[in-house]
């Protein structure tokens, strides 16, 4: 089975949000009851029912305004932290195509993946007591189709294809526009790549982790505790231990907010 990559060429994004709606349509996700946020970004954040979001940022670069638009969804890590921490077998699975897919049937709603994720992607529903996120349209790509967002994109910003081809395309495009590839950490591979434009610091993109890596706590959890929990503890004890672990790293891992990307000021 070939490995795939979704390529997001930010230099071609016009923020039309066709991807955001196509995602909801294919995945049958209901609309949220939103209200005015002060920005074009709406819903204000990813959620249990919003797996793809265009994030908008207005910045000044030497007196000139730049309006940044970024397609935000699961990055589909090669070695996914969420899968590593997930205590429930089958709830989060890395597929041979490169997709990281959640299965509500096995999700126990422990939220460990939310804390572990270096990109702050999975979202929890208290009503359903489970998480949800982008699946890279696993049900489409295994059927020879491209993800819904890619199919809907009118400008050529989104592309999807075999890993090697997409990496090559990303490099060529980055060189052509003088931009750069994100993430560009050989130690942390993802099945989603960005080409970011020149002249804009990646820190200007809200909710974009400039240095994605496997959280140390995940390694700690995985190597020391997880096998033990699964083998021996299970049940209530395991979840209690998990809750304890979650509580700690959450505060450590949380990054300072930029003061609300949804604020138009």
């Amino acid at each position, binding site marked *: 089975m070939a490995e795939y990559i979704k390529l997001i060429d930010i*230099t*071609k*994004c*016009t*923020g*039309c*949000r*066709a991807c*955001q*709606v196509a995602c*909801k*349509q294919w995945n049958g996700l*209901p*609309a*949220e*009851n*939103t*209200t*005015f*946020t*002060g*920005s*074009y970004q*709406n*819903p204000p954040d990813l959620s249990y029912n919003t797996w793809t979001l265009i994030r908008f940022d*207005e910045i*000044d670069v030497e007196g000139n*305004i*730049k*309006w*940044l*638009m970024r397609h935000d969804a699961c990055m589909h890590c090669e070695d996914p932290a969420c899968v590593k921490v997930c205590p429930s077998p089958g709830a989060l699975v890395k597929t041979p195509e490169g997709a990281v897919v959640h299965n509500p049937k096995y999700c126990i709603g422990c939220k460990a993946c939310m804390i572990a994720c270096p990109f702050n992607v999975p979202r929890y529903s208290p009503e359903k007591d489970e998480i949800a996120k982008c699946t890279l349209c696993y049900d489409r790509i295994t059927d020879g189709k491209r993800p819904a967002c890619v199919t809907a994109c*009118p*400008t*050529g910003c989104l592309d999807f294809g075999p890993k090697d081809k997409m990496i090559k395309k990303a490099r060529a495009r980055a060189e*052509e526009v003088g931009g750069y590839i994100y993430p560009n950490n050989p130690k942390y591979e993802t099945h989603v790549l960005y080409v970011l434009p020149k002249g804009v610091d990646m820190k200007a993109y809200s909710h974009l982790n400039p240095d994605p890596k496997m959280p140390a706590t995940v390694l700690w959890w995985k190597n020391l505790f997880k096998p033990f929990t699964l083998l021996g503890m299970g049940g209530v004890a395991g979840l209690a231990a998990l809750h304890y672990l979650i509580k700690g790293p959450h505060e450590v891992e949380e990054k300072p907010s930029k003061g609300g990307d949804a*604020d*138009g*000021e």
Partner: protein
Amino acid sequence: MIIGSNAAENHPISFKWVNEAREKRGAKLINVDPRFTRTSATADLYARLRSGTDIAFIGGMINYALQNGRIQWDYVRDYTNAAFLVDPSFKGPVNLDGVFSGLNGGKYNKSTWAYQLDEDGNPKKDPSLNDPNCVFQLLKRHYARYTIEKVCSMTGGDPEVYNQVYDLYTSTCKPEKSATIMYAMGSTQHTYGSQNVRIYAVLQLLLGNIGVAGGGINALRGESNVQGSTDHAALFHILPGYLKTPKASLQTYAEYLEANTPKSNDKMSANWWGNYPKYAASLLKAFWRDVDLEEAYRYMPKIDDGVNYSTIPIIEQMARGNIQGLFCWGQNPAVGCPSARLVRRALAKLDWLVAVDLWETETASFWQKDAGVDPSDIKTEVFLLPAAASMEKEGSISNSGRWAQWRYKAVDPPGQARDDLAIMTELVYRLKDLYKAGGAFPKPILNLTWDYGKKGLDGSFHHPSVHEVAKEINGFFLKDTEVKGKLYKAGQMVPSFAYLKEDGSTCSGNWLYCNSISDTENKLMRRSTSDPTGLGFYHNWSWCWPVNRRIIYNRASVDKKGRPWAKDKPVIWWDALTKKWKGDVPDGGWAPGTKYPFIMLPHGHARLFAPGLADGPFPEHYEPLESQIKNFMSSQQVSPVIMRWDKEIQKGVCDPMLAEGCCACTYGSPDAEKFPIICTTYRITEHWQAGQMTRWLPWLAELVPNMFVEMSEELAKEKGVKSGDKVKVTSIRNLEGIEVYAMVTKRFKPFQINGKIHHQAGMLWHFGYKGRATGSIANDLTPFVGDANTMIPEYKAFLVDINKVRG
């Protein structure tokens, strides 16, 4: 260059091609807009201008081109009217302080806007372009006044940025280079909207950018099928194929033909409209197959000379109680028309209203409590006919590239919803039945040829065949006819408009679409993606009017010997061996150099000087009707020939509108301090037009759930407003104002005009009181005034005030 358009947001698919041109051909994108939009965000160069100053901006570019010799000389001399000599008594704003000769009582007498003629009646020319009365010299003097300093003092733009834009854009004057302009309603919706587009044409002609690959002026239409609806004449002043609506003064068919068939004595001029009688006769025969042409012409409704029947005057007449009934077919004037409060009051003066739409629109529900009225006060009888959406019916649409593409039905319409053709067909048969019982002038209805959806024996209607309509639009022979030795039987499709007859022996519902359907094929259905030239012609994808020609005026893409200006992207070229044109379908098959390229104009030359317009042969800058800024070009503040209703008030004849408590026909004066903020309206990608098709859809309502006004951080600070606050926007026509959210953004910046700060704000016009997402109606503030030529309303520049809602 994208100007007067936010293509990235409102024509997102167009950006696929914009991006492709940048990627494959190294094209550069310039965006010109008062506000930094999603289009600006992707542009290579962004230039700001105050709403309503497009002519100043482009006038400065034309001056730059003329001063720096950025002109495609051969093209300008041979293919435009630059060399034509104009009547020496013609005077323009250079001499007459902002107006043209002949101004009298708010109208121009255009007798001096004429060419000097030789003994054959053809315009005299000076190919050296040196005669002081030649168009080129007149143009040069006219635009010499548009210096960059003066331009920037009007637009509020940055001279350094403008110079960069001017330099980059006019560099396409080289024969092998081209540039295109994408514009939309930001250009047209002004009191001088036609002139905004005209000035793009002047610029493009000077640079030799019309008729060539990658050139032209692209009108980005507000709807996917606006081109088709215009081709088929959903406007009062034209008939299908841009034939003219008969006027009351032209009582006979001969008079009508005489008035509308241009003549030329120049053998080099194809003067294509000389074929007018063939097209008119074929159209009349499509309407009334069984009567002669004179009788058919008698049936045609005729408009009073000099009276305008576009939307604004119709609403005025409605408000005065002069109109009994209205069909609102896929239109929502209660939200979409200027001074929409007046529109809703005018609707209440109707006896009946039929709304045909997908949802219950604000127009269909203007009588309900949601509209803020007491239903018991409204006497109008309202019918709502549910219509089928585009996916629920078969037919064609024509895009702004003139491609007519067939569309298939995907699903049945829900419930009782029916497609427009079925609704119209039943209406026709019912009207015929009613007229059989009598009525005024019944013959036009009784004799109307309507071959679709016959009534069954049980009284039910067969669904009309849209294929039969398409065939009639193409046209067919009405009797056996021999053309060039080939016999065409009655009923066979006419192969192209060259075969149409003026004697009534052919019919064609629209001569431009003649050639779209053959006896064996509906070419609109073609779906071949082959593109042998690599220029994107796709000759076998759908069909393009006229006769599948993908670039009109393509004879301007070659020199007089038939050699393409641009060797690497030829549109057509002359093959000396076969003595035939190769490439695109040529604009006439004549040998190179034997006919002028602009075949639709009587003199065959494109018009730098256009005497046909109501407000001047050269575009001249005027201020929007509502502006606090003095016109720096002249003492003529606003266009002198626009139709103004405030003058009606002064004359005391506008009372019916005022008596309704509506001051739609008042405008802010330049010294009014009460309304200091320049405002414009626009659309966003998430909603569609007046919102009836999108505000009901949860996924789209989720994206933009509320009405808002965008304003700069500086204005917000002055007004003590924060992003997300509720504010009230007022105009002189609506002192109570509308309540909306404030979006404070860096994307709007104040303009520095003559040392003074002028703020600009912008509002969406998608919202109304019906649907899942509702909000205030922006057009409750907009002025009741239109363009001097087309009456398109001035939605894009007017004055408001914005204040925080306390408590």
